[in-house]
């Protein structure tokens, strides 16, 4: 069984990868996907901690995260659709209505 440190390292790496994508990509959909990657990293973290402390709360949190991710993806994607309908683009640097 790998030790807790290894699981935590994995979780942090996944989180950072997702964060990098979130900060860097221009495509709005890929930004949303990066958020999902971040959430998955957190899922790994909580599950590992729960396993090692024998506390059920971690798994419950994982359950809730999954449900919440679904809700958030739904809303986020409908907003992307709206932006596409209005502005004909999904690239963040072409959406400049809030500039200035």
């Amino acid at each position, binding site marked *: *069984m*790998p030790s*807790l*440190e290894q699981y*935590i*390292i*994995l979780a*942090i790496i*996944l989180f*950072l*990868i*997702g*964060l990098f*994508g979130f*900060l*860097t*990509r*221009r*495509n709005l*959909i*890929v930004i949303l*996907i*990066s958020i*999902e*990657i971040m959430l*998955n990293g957190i*899922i*790994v973290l909580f599950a*590992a*901690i*729960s*396993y*090692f*402390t*024998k*506390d*059920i*709360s971690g*798994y*419950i949190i*994982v*359950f*809730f995260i*999954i*449900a919440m*991710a*679904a*809700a958030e*993806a*739904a*809303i986020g*994607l*409908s907003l*992307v*659709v*709206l932006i*596409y309908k209005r502005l004909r683009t999904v*690239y*963040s*640097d072409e959406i400049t209505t809030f500039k200035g």
Partner: protein
Amino acid sequence: MNWDLIIFYYLAIVMIFSSVFAIFSRHPVYTVLLVLVMIIHQAFLLLTLGAEFLTVVQLIVYAGAILVLFLFVVYLINLRKETKRNVFIRKISLIAITFLVLGAFLIANLFSLISLKPSFKAYLPFSVEEKSNVWWIANYLFKSYLLQFEIIGVILLVAIFGAVFLIRKVKIFG
């Protein structure tokens, strides 16, 4: 052979690489599919951690619903391969620096988290193998954490309403 470790490393490496490729790819569909790979491997990781219920839940909800939703939207707005454009925004270097700072910070503080000791005052003595993961989760979900459960239900409800509400026809100004 320490199968646990081998499986763990395999799953971990595939997860990491698929997510890296996912955020570096040009085609949005490739991104979604690579994330799908990552999700499946993560589900198996959860399985090794003894949470079979959560594995299945993740596969059904995450892989089966959310990513499908993403694909729908990708097709809806007809995204093509980004050939003429940059993948990343300009001035990526500034962001990368900030990012590295956070990364370094997190990893540096990693070891303060390591001193977690198993707390035996917790709910579940995991070594008791008679009850399954489903049993334990259901036991605590509907008793101790009932409020949070209901709240999650409300969140999902709001999300449904929100999605429907946002897509209604609005007058476009200008």
